[in-house]
Each structure stands twice: as C-alpha cells, then as structure tokens.
C-alpha cells in the first residue's frame, strides 16, 4: 500500500518535472529576437512540416468528406431532408472533424517526424556539439519547428475543410444527384464566420501548440539510443492524440456548451 502511494507520488513528481522542462524549453526557444537567418530555417521547417503533410491531408480530407456526405445522405433521406447534407457536413467538419482529424494526422506524420529528427540529433551528439560551437540548439532546431508547427496546422486545417467539403459535394451532388443550389445555399445560410469557422480555427491553433510542443519536447528529451528514439516517437503520437481529443472535449464544451 505504501509502496503504491510512493510510486504514484514519484510518477507525479516525474510528470511535473517533465512539464517544467518542457515549459522552460518552450519559453527559451520562443524568446529572443528572430534574425534573418532564422527565417530560412523557418521556411525549411514549414516545408518539412506543412508541405510534406499535404498529400495525406488532402487524401484523407477527400475520403472523409465523401464518406460523411454519403452517411448523412442515407440517414436524412429517411426524412426527405437530403438538402440538409450540406449544412450537416459543413457544421461537423468546421467545428469538429476538421480541426481534430487534421491535428491527429499531423501528429502522426509531422509530429513523429519532428520527434525523430530531434531525437536523432540528440543521439548523434549533434545538439551537444552545436552548443559547444556556441550555437543555441533551441534557436536553430527547436524554435523553427515550433513556429512552423503552429503556423502550418491551422492552414492545413483550412485546406482539409475545403477538400472535405468538396469531396462531400462530389458525393452528394454528382453521385447521389442532390440539388447543388440546396447544398450550397443551405450551408451558407447556416454557417457563420465566427461561430463555426472561427471557433474551429481557434481549436486548430490550440492543437497546433499542443502537438508541436509535445513533438519537440519528446525529441529534445529523448533517451539517446535507437530504442529511445522509437519510444519517444511513439509517445509523441500517443500523447498528442490523447491531448487533442481531451482538449477538443474541453474546447467544445466551453465554446458550444449551453448550460442552464
């Protein structure tokens, strides 16, 4: 019994230790005035993190949009309300699926890549040699990735939403013969800039911070062995996914919850 409590206490302390180190890392990485050289690094990271994720985002978006549209259509047809597919699709995507799925895919593809890269750099002593040469690894390695991640995810979410709606439209209008006017007008009538798109983007920014932070920290804190890198990468994906879903729950409650 005592042993169990002690173990829990130790784990709590370890957790707080991680949190502290992660916060310090974040703070140190983001502080300081960016220089022109840093911009080049940032651009490179945007490429790695954002551009290279496009393929999976676009493909997934199209499929998800198409599938949801099909399922909605099937259910709504029972009530003769097929025209509402556009509305339902847009609402679900903009408010929930867009930000969440994009973030999950991002964590899997870009997050794990970040962790692996940084972890590898740590294991191959690149980080410590950088420090010895007087180059701040936080500035050269960590900061560009942090900024790039926070920048790319919202953009990727927007692209995801657009492609998914397009995929949904293809299914609802072209394949299932729905009315294009009803699809778009119904959507335009129901979707509001701040309420739906805006709040979805806010979620996406929150997810961006969380995922990038976790990915970078896990890489930075890797046990410098091959096994360690694998462990960190996995942890990035798992932890990011859990945090995304948990934060989504909290954000949805606070944004859309209506308690009386």
């Amino acid at each position, binding site marked *: 019994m005592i042993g169990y409590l002690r173990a829990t206490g130790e784990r709590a302390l370890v957790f707080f230790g991680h949190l502290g180190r992660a916060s310090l890392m974040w703070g140190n990485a983001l502080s300081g005035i960016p220089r022109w050289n840093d911009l080049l690094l940032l651009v490179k990271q945007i*490429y790695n993190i954002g551009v290279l994720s496009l393929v999976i985002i676009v493909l997934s978006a199209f499929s998800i949009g198409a599938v949801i549209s099909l399922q909605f259509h099937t259910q709504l047809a029972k009530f003769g309300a097929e*025209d509402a597919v556009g509305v339902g699709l847009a609402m679900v995507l903009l408010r929930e699926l867009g930000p969440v799925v994009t973030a999950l895919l991002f964590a899997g593809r870009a997050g794990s890549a970040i962790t692996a890269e940084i972890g590898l750099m740590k294991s191959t002593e690149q980080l410590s040699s950088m420090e010895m040469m007087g180059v701040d690894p936080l500035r050269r390695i960590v900061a560009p990735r942090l900024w790039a991640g926070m920048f790319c995810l919202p953009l990727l979410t*927007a692209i995801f*939403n657009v492609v998914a709606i397009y995929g949904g439209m293809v299914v609802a209008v072209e394949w299932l013969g729905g009315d294009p006017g009803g699809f778009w007008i119904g959507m*335009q009538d129901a*979707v509001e800039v701040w309420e739906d*798109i805006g709040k979805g983007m806010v979620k996406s920014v929150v997810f961006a911070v969380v995922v990038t932070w976790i990915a970078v920290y896990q890489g930075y804190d890797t046990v410098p062995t091959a096994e360690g890198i694998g462990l960190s990468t996995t942890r990035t994906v798992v932890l990011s996914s859990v945090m995304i879903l948990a934060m989504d729950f909290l954000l949805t409650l606070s944004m859309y919850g209506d308690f009386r």
Partner: protein
Amino acid sequence: MRLRTLEISVGAFVLAGALALVFLAVKVSGVNFTGSRDSYTVLARFDDVAGLRHRAKVSMAGVTIGRVTGIEVDLDYGEAIVTLELDGLAGVLPADTGAQILTEGMLGARYINLLPGIEEEFLEEGDMILDTQGALVLEKLIGDVVTGMRTKK
C-alpha cells in the same frame, strides 16, 4: 533539395492555405465582400418568438432581404421586440407591413416573412412593425376556435 524549389513549394503551400481560408469564409459561410451595402434597421413586436434565432433570415416574396440582429423583451408591454436589419434604403415598406414568424424546411428553422401593406406612409429607420404573427401552428388553432365556439344543442 534546391533552395528555389523549397521556397516555391512553401510559398505555394501558404497561398493554398490562405485561399482555403478565403474559400471557407466566402463560399461556405456566405460572407460578402461587396463593400458595405446600404441597410436600415426596423423593429417588430411579437407576442411569441419561440424558436427564432439571431441571424435568422428576413424574407419577402421568397427573397432574403435582411437578417434578425436582435431579440429583446419589453417587460412593460409583455412583448418581444425583434430588431431587423434590412437591405437597401428605408422608406420602401409601408407602415402597415406585416411580419410573420414562419418555419422552413425539415429542420424547422424559424424565419421572418414580411407582407407589405397599403398605407401611404413608410417604415423609416427605427420604426416599429406593429402588425405581426408570432410563432404558432395556424390551422390547428383556427380549427380550435371554430370548434370551441360551438356548444352542444
């Protein structure tokens, strides 16, 4: 990886993202950027606005001509005061124009329908529509009244 290609692809990516955001704003939510259009505000009093929401559409003869921008309670008169923002310039709708709260489509979205009247004076900015029909199920109630007014012989 050559620097040029990298820069181009990043630029394209950022552009794509920005376009996506614009597309969402315009095509998906129907926000218009055609400059500030003329509009004027008119009030309408109702005895029951059940189900009417902010940003509900205001339509006349089947065309959307405005939005609901406010719903408040007037405790003195025991009525709901709805603020309507209508396109165009004031002085077009007669002062005895009627406003109904109707239901649209399967999902039951409430909206306001305007029926122009015949008075020679017109609704100006801030005027109130007095002739209204609150949210109700009509046929049932007309039937109720006629039935209820009859008694057994």
